[in-house]
Every structure is written in C-alpha cells, then in structure tokens.
C-alpha cells in the first residue's frame, strides 16, 4: 500500500465535453477546437481526451490503452495480458512528430477478450477491473490509461490541443468526446498523471482539488480500489464505478453521494426522500467529495457534468438539436456552437447530463486501427 505516504500535486484546469445523442460520429477536430479556447486555463503540463465510438469494428473487445516507461514493462505487461485475455489485436498507438510534443513514453493499445474459462465464476467487468488494478499497482513502468469497449483515452504532458495533434485525433471519429487541459502546480513528466482518468468505459475529466482525498481513498481501498496515482480524478472514477456499476445507484443518487445535499436541506424534505437521502449519506459518507470540483463523467451511454456541493468551480451545459455540450467556460461552447438552444448553469450537486437516445448505434463511422506497428502474430489466435 502506497496510500499512507503519497505526494499529491494540486492542479487547476479546463474541461469540456461534446456528445451527439443520436450517436452520430464526428471527428476529434471539434473537441480540439473547443478546448483550445481555454488554453490559458492549462499550463502545458497535461492534456488529454476520451473518445467513445472510435473502435466500432472491435466493439466487443476491451480496448486497453497502455503507457510504458520502457521495453521491459511492455514485455511484462503483454505476458500478463496473455495469461488472462485472448489478444485480438495490438499495436502502437499512431502518433505524429510535432514541434510541441518532442518526447513521449511508449504508447500501445490492445483489443482483448477475457478468456472464457476465467470469467465463468465472476463478473466479466469485475475481472477486467482486477487486471487493470494488477497492472497499475504491480507492473513497474506500465500504466493502463483506458480499458473500456469501443472507447479510448489519449493523454500526455503538453497543452491539450498539442496532445490532440500528436495523437492525430482529427482522424478519429466518435460520438462522445471529453477533453482536459491541466494546470498542475509543479512539473510531472509522467504521462499517466494527465487526465482523463478512465476505468472500463468510465472516463473522468476534472477541474478541482479534493480536500477529502484521504478519506475517499482509504474507503475505496477497502472496496477493492487501491488508489495508487495520487490524483483526485482517480478517486472520482473509482467512486463512480463502485456506485453506478457495482452498487447500481441511479445517476441522481450517485450525485447525491459525491456532492451530497446539506443536512438542513435533507431534514426538510418529504419523509420518503429524506429517509432515502439520509441512508445514502450514512452509508456512503466516506465518498462525499469535499473541496472544489467541476467534473465531466462519461461512459458509453451518457455524459454527466457535476459540481461540488457549494459550487466552487464553474460548469455550464448547452444543447442544440442532438448535440449536448458541457464546459468550464461558455466561450468554449460558443466557439463550436454559436447559437445553442439553451444554456444551463450547474447548480451545486445537481448533475447536468445527456443520455444516448440510440443505444445500439454507438459510433457509425469508426476509426481505422491499423496505422500502428502491430504485435507479432497480429490480430489472430496467438494465444492458443
């Protein structure tokens, strides 16, 4: 357990998200244009994107995006993955050399199916979560930056628009994109520390600092989520996964845990609501997030914006036709949608959200995935 003696780096940020609720895909250009408006909210020490619907041809596989420090960590991770998964494909994530991003760690992605005999007994998603935790805590120099189906996270050290250019995001097409520009207070050359943070198909971009980190992390640790990255965003991601996937809480209940209403409000609610919210707060008291935050949480089906219980950070949503936008600043939305139908300002603890209308579609265009260097024995049955 590295929990007890961690080094936490506070940071300020810009966040943005765009979703097409009909699951129509669009290129990464749009989100890059959007986040670039808020350039001054980051300082070039972290930027990243989460994109949904980008791998429709392999949508049944868990797409693992890996960041490696060196060759041995890659070899060890691939050996590990082969123990648990059928490796349908694997390659380096294509990047372009740019003037702004000169060095990068090794970036790989794998398309994986859990070995059937291993998941007979346990929940498949739980199986995947365990493996992600094992890599992140057990393999030195390896970090899983995303592990969901038909989605991926692209992040690194740099301004977000430069990171987007580096990853050639204009060539990707997804129906939901979120982005993050980071303003950490000190340099960290570690690409894994950038946002979004992701687990399964959850991704979180986060503007803020959690003053309850220790309480949250210690609780999550007892729930099987060792927090090793010392970032607040990791804590939020695990909390959302625990609440919504494992404990099947509704979106509103999840928000009432993370940004709980105050007791004096709860006490004056009608008895059944009061009872429910009291129970939520009692059971999940350790997951209340204190301190300023604005977050965009996304998964395959939805995009959620949430601010802390006293709204210490800004967040605004806008809507037009089938488009839904969430951003730290209105200007960023206006850049890509000059005349939205309506703007909604976030209220403390009340989620802003949009859900996918067409749940089966999830990305019509997709992205070719064959630009990178493939694994030896690529896309076939070298697990046998």
């Amino acid at each position: 357990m590295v929990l007890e003696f961690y080094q936490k780096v506070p940071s300020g940020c810009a966040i943005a998200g765009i979703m097409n609720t009909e699951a129509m895909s669009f290129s990464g250009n749009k989100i890059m244009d959007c986040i670039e408006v808020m350039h001054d909210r980051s300082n070039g020490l972290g930027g990243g994107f989460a994109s949904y619907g980008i791998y429709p041809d392999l949508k049944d596989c868990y797409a693992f995006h890996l960041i490696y420090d060196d060759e041995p960590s890659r070899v060890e991770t691939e050996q590990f993955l082969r123990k648990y998964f059928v490796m349908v494909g694997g390659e380096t994530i294509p990047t372009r050399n740019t003037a702004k991003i000169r060095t990068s760690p090794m970036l790989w992605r794998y398309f994986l199916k859990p070995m059937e005999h291993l998941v007979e007994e346990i929940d498949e998603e739980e199986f995947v979560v365990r493996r992600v935790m094992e890599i992140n805590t057990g393999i030195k120099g390896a970090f899983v930056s995303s592990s969901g189906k038909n989605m991926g996270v692209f992040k690194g050290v740099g301004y977000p628009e430069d990171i987007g250019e580096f990853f050639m995001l204009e060539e990707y097409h997804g129906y939901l994109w979120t982005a993050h520009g980071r303003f950490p207070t000190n340099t960290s050359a570690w690409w894994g520390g950038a946002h979004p943070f992701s687990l399964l198909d959850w991704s979180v971009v986060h503007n803020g600092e959690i003053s309850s980190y220790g309480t949250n992390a210690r609780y999550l640790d007892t729930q099987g989520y060792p927090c090793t990255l010392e970032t607040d965003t990791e804590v939020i991601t695990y909390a959302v996964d625990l609440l919504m996937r494992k404990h099947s809480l509704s979106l509103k209940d999840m928000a009432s845990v993370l940004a709980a209403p105050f007791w004096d409000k709860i006490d004056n609610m009608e008895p059944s609501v009061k009872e429910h919210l009291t129970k939520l707060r009692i059971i999940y008291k350790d997951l209340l997030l204190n301190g300023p935050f604005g977050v965009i949480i996304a998964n395959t089906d939805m995009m959620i914006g949430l601010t802390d219980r006293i709204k210490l950070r800004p967040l605004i949503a806008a809507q037009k036709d089938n488009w839904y936008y969430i951003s730290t600043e209105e200007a960023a939305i206006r850049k890509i949608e000059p005349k939205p139908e309506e703007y909604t300002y976030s209220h403390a603890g009340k989620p802003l959200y949009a859900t996918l209308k067409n749940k089966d579609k999830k990305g019509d265009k997709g992205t070719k995935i064959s630009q990178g260097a493939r694994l030896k024995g690529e896309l076939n049955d070298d697990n046998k």
Partner: protein
Amino acid sequence: MITNNFPPKYKLNINENCNKCKRCAKECSFDVFTFDETENNIVAYNKNCVACRRCVLTCPQNAIELSENKIAFNSHFNWDYKTQNDIHKQSDTGAKLLTSVGTGLSHKNIFDHLLLDACQVTNPSIDPLREPMELRTFVGRKSDNISDEIGPQLQLETPIVFAAMSFGALSLNVHKALGNAARKAGTCMNCGEGGLHPDMVEYGPNTFVQVASGRFGIDKEYLESGAAIEIKIGQGAKPGIGGHLPGEKIDKEISKTRMIPEGSDAISPAPHHDIYSIEDLENLIYLLKEVTEYKKPVGVKISAVHNAPAIATGIVRAGADFVAVDGLKGGTGATPATIRDNVGIPIELAISSIDKRLREEKIRHKASIIASGGIRSSADILKIIALGADCASIGTAALIALGCTVCESCHTNKCAWGIATQKPELTKRLDPEEGGERVYNLLRSWSLEMKELLGSLGITSIESLKGNRERLRALDLDSYTMETLGVKGAGR
C-alpha cells in the same frame, strides 16, 4: 525518627484582609481550616490541602493565598519529591496508593505534536460564516451498500459525547447537568456502570446505558430507556481491573439505582464473569440486541492496550455496532495510581492502528469508533477524527466546565465542588441547570472551533476528515510513531 513527616505540598496564607467570616471553614471539605477562638483567627492545616481552590475562589475578602510549598529537595532526578513521598505513604500504611482523574505523568502528548493542514490558492478555504459546516455524525453499523438494511443509528449533532461516569462516582446533579447539556446540543451522555436514576430516565434518548461487570441497575427497562448500549470491558485509567464503590457511599438513592442493598460495597469484578472469550462477548452483544429488538446500537468499550487492533477486530466481528476506545490518559473516579500511570497506550496510537486494521480487514464501516482518554480541545477532536475515529468522548473536560479543578481527590468522596461526591451538603453546590448551560457552552464553543478548522481545511462536512491523515503532519515525532499514525513529517 524516620523522616516520613514530609512538609505539605501546598501552603495557605491568610492575609490581613480576612474579616473572620469563617466561610472558608465551611467551604473546605478537606478540613483544612479551623477558627481559633483564643487567637481570633483562621488557622490552616496545610497538610490536608489538595489545592482544589474552593476557599480561594469563595473567600469574600480575597484573603487566601494558595501556593506550592517549595522546599528544597536534593535535585536528584530519579528520587524527586513525588517518588519519595509515595514511598513514605506506602511505608506508613502498607496499602496501595489510590488516586483519581487521568494520569498526570509526563507521557509524551502526541496531540501536541500533530499539526493540521490548511488551504491556500489551489483549493479555497471555506468561511463557516457563509457556508454550512456539518458536524452531524452517526454512530452505528453501516451496511455494505444501499440495497442492504442499515443497522440502527444514533444521530449526534456534534462529534462529541460524554464519557461513561457513573452515578456513585459522580453526584446526581452532575448527571442532570450532563443530561441537560447533551439534550440541548443534540448529543449523548453515558450513565456509566451505576444504573440509571429514576430522575435520569427522561434523558434516556440522550444516554448511552452501560453494561459493566458488576451488572448494576440492569433490567429490561434500563436497556430500553437508553439510546445505545455500551458493554464496558475496560477503562483507560484502569485497564484490566475492576471497580470498588465503598459501602459508605451506597446511600438510599445509589442503592435504588444500582439495585443493591444500602451500605453494601459495590464491586465491579475485573473481568465480566460470563465473558472469558470473544465468543462469550458475542453472546452478550446478541443478548442485549435481542432484548432491545435490534433497535439500538450495541457497542463495546475497551481500554487502549497493545493488542487493541486485534481485539477491536474481534469485537466488530462479534457484532458490535461501535467500539469505544479509552486511552492511557483517560480519567477515573478511583484507581490504584500504579495502574493509572503505567498501563495502556495513548489514544492517538490506538485509534490509528485500530482504524488501519479494520480497513485492512474491510470491516471499518461495520462499526463506529469512539475515542477518549485525554481529549482536551476541539483541535484534539479533529486530530483524533483525522486519525480514524468517528467521534470523541470527553469526561474530565466536561467536569472542568462544571468546576472541577483536577485536584485528584475524587476517590475521597470530599469533592469540594460537589462533583465527585455523594455528601448532600457538597452535591448541592452544583446547580444542574447552570452546570448544564456551562457544559453546553463548551460543546458549542468546540463545535464552532471545529467548523472554523474544517473551513480552513476546505472541508464542509466532518465526514470528509475521517481517517484523512493526509491533512495531518507530525512535528518532533520519531519515525516509528509517525508510521503507526500514518502521518508524514511536517514540511513533507
């Protein structure tokens, strides 16, 4: 001649302002003052003085000067005044030395070496005058998730309860004062092991009722009148030993409350004679739950000893809804001095390792932790909560609010402030309404201070400080202690 006639520790001087009103002679319950008719003046027998300060504070002429009687002792570090004096007392009587309150030895106070964090720039501090600050705390077993039934919960509006102090050790007026304060502040007192006096039944919704080894005053009605039930295994000031309330203290009221004959000694055995193992404890926990139909939290109080984490784990697995832990510096109405000063571990270390162990075992949410033993201020409370407790319990601090001057004489039944005594002429000195108001004020003041501290930490709910050791730093503690506390050194 053997040099056992030590000069008195304190010295009283009555100055020329004295108008011979003789009030001091009435006020002093330790028989210090007499009026000398022939000399027409007040004479003080210094040797009886315990420095309770009653005379000084009640003399209408402000004529009494109380000071430490400084006589020269050979400046030997090991064989100082106290050590020599103790030996003389023991060789005079052949008895063990009795004392009260918490230990006064200079064991390192870890609280004083822990510092809290505060927000600057990246995370705004929060102004408690503008934003709500929540101190509400629930004591009880929490379920694993929302779909399970949650156990009975005791709702406290501030994370402070009063420690178990029995009627017998304390006067009924003290119980009433604590009851009034607890009710007004939305928290709980603890009736201790002496049963619940009929006058106290109305305070039941704000009372932990205790089940101790003497089983005094326990029947179904008693258990049902409390808000929660606490099985007392140990006490910080006297781990591993029982209690003894002498027959002369067992007057009509106490006999009624404890359900024992008037004038008989009330003996609490060291162990519960039906608990010789953890399974036995489990039986008692479930017996009490059955009797009260699973409507109240049932917890267990232990003293902080070396093996406390393993014991606490066993207690939680045995079904307890809370674990109360009383540290080395916890107070008492009477105990052998050698036990008080030498047995147990500080509460800061005990809570840290219990919280850690329960988390490792993944059962931390199954019970609340109540910490006590030397908690002196709002900052101590926040520090113990950051180390892993859910709330703190205070005894001596509440008594000081009622006038206690820490004279360490509770076991004599002579408390001049009417607190630790049953003598009617003394107990009437304490007005339960006025006293209740003072103790309530203390809770209010500490609660406001806690809100101030939480605001500076950027936290709007006490829940978010629980176990949040990242917000603490250690100053001048050795690395082993810091590791046990799970706290980094200041500056890191």
